[in-house]
């Protein structure tokens, strides 16, 4: 099955917009992290599509890179989340995050 790169890019941009929307409208930190994950994967999809279009391996290299990045991001993000919870925050609401001290 072959999809035109244009279609893949359209899908990627839709996914990216979806992720962005999620970051902007969801207040729950967990969901925000998931939305960021979606955005990253959208970007990765765009890379793969572009690599296919130009018949270059660079796109897949970048995909692997983004995969690693996303994993690291998720690890750090979730770690922060757990620390916040451990520090006794009752909520995962991102809008209360501006009251951090120290």
């Amino acid at each position, binding site marked *: 099955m072959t999809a035109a790169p244009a279609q893949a890019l359209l899908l990627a941009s839709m996914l990216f917009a979806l992720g*962005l929307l999620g*970051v*902007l*409208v969801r*207040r729950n930190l967990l969901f*925000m992290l998931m939305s960021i994950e979606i955005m990253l994967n959208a970007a990765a999809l765009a890379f793969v599509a572009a690599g296919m279009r130009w018949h270059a391996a660079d796109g897949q290299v970048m995909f692997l890179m983004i995969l690693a990045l996303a994993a690291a991001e998720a690890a750090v993000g979730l770690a922060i989340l757990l620390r916040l919870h451990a520090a006794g925050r009752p909520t995962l609401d*991102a*809008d209360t*995050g*501006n*009251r*951090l001290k120290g």
Partner: protein
Amino acid sequence: MLALLPPLIVLCPLAAAAILLLSAGRMPPPAARLLAAGAVGLAAALTLWLAVRFLSAPPPAHRLDVVLWHWLRVGGFDARIAFTLDPLSLVMMLVVTGVGFLIHLYACGYMRGDPDVARFFACMTLFVAAMLVLVLSSDLLCLYVGWEGVGLCSYLLIGFWYAEAANGVAARKAFIVTRIGDAALLCGLLLLATRTGGLEIAGVLRSIQPGGPVAEAAAALLLGGALAKSAQAPFQVWLPDAMAGPTPVSALIHAATMVTAGVYLIARLHPLFLAAPAVMTAIAVLGLVTLLLAAGSALAQTDIKRILAFSTISQLGYMFLALGTGAWGAAIFHLVTHAVFKALLFMAAGAVILRVHHQQDIFRMGGLGRAMPGVFAAFAAGAAALAGLPLVTAGFYSKEAILQQAWRAGPVLWAGALLGAFLTALYISRCVFIVFLGPVRTAPTGRTEASMAIPLAGLSVLALTGGLIEMPDAIAPVHLLFRLLAPVLGPPTTEGAEGGAGVLLLAGALAPLAGIAVAWGLWRPRAGAPAPADDGLARAARAGWGFDAAYGLLLVRPFLALGWLNRRDLFDRVPDLLAAATRWGARLLGRMQDGQVRRYAGWIAAGTVAALCLAVRP
């Protein structure tokens, strides 16, 4: 040798002033007195010697130029510190050093006991030096040095007793008002220098084109300076207040010498003024107006020194009237006689004031003639000369010369001057009658010192006989002064060309007599204390016809009020405004940074989209 003398004569008082200033009050008063009087006396003696040498063997063209050094030479402009000795400056030098010496001598007695006598004499000698520079300069810029220098000394001496706030105010007023005229004079100099490339008097006069706008403008600007310095309308307001200074100062600066600088300036530059007929008319009219206004004010004053101050303004008005009619010689003649008799009057008044415990109100004096006959005689001699008592006083001859010229210029001017002569006799007789006759109201104490009496005696003789050097043809054809001044001021006008000279002479002689008679009728000693008139007219006259109030209301107060409103500096608010705008903008932008992660993300997204749009835009 002769050329060395003028700088030397200037140097005498200048050196004394420098020594007195640098000694910074450490010099004992007797030494200060001796130094000052000695220096001015030496200057007077040298001047006398110079005069004898000059008259016995006049230099070519009756002038002697002494160039001391080049002052400014840049960009085609050249000014020098240079002196010219000619008959006019010689006459002025004689007045300045001669009368100046007598006044210094008098001041030695008058200022005895004042702890600051060194400062006093430092300023006095500095004044004499500056005045000599003024009358000797052959370059207008050099003259301006003396012109401002005498103004400065006047300021310092009016405010000599500085602990009294009013004295300081009077001193400042005198300086500022004359400074306004000085600024006009400076503009005149700028105009002349631009036109002629230099300010050497002879060169300036050569380059004048009669009737042109330059001549008119330059003459008008110079006239501004002369009017302010000589306390003529509309600048006359400073002189009465200047009486706050010690009496010798009033005699020297505000009667005999400095205030006549304006007259000297116009006489010195008379070809320029001849080339500006409109300005000449203005001089005559202003002179006449001042003469009558000031005489009226003098009639209503109660302070003896203010009477004399207004009288000085009025007499200077005579000189300006003479200048305006082209009678340069007559103006200088009256300048000389006025210097003598007004200095005499001031010094006699000072002697009176010292004896009656610094009382200056004439209505608290009275009957002083019996207690101090010598001073009375001196004051009477001065008063007679001021009134112009016919034949026996100097003032009569000089005033007569002016009246003759005024008649030639126009009957209106003549009538005004005649009225002035009547008023002069009236107010000075009032002063004499109230102060010296009648019952004693303040008993005098002490004695008048010899150092004060000698100058009084000397000036009395001069006030009575000094006029004999120059007489109308109808009395005797003596023209010593006019002939002496002829090389500078032109040949004397032929007198008695018209038939009515005798009648004019008679009128001029009768006016002062009538004034004295009326004064006798009004203020002769009677039972009961005389009191100053207190109706509206008298009050207006006493206040100098409201010039002071008008200037205060129209100029000084609005100027100061506006300045006070703006004292925080309008322009300083502009940066404040900028700072406020910055702060406000920062607060606005700071709102974006509220710690809301989602809002940040939104901004990031919006920014990225905007950047992409910019990048993709064809």
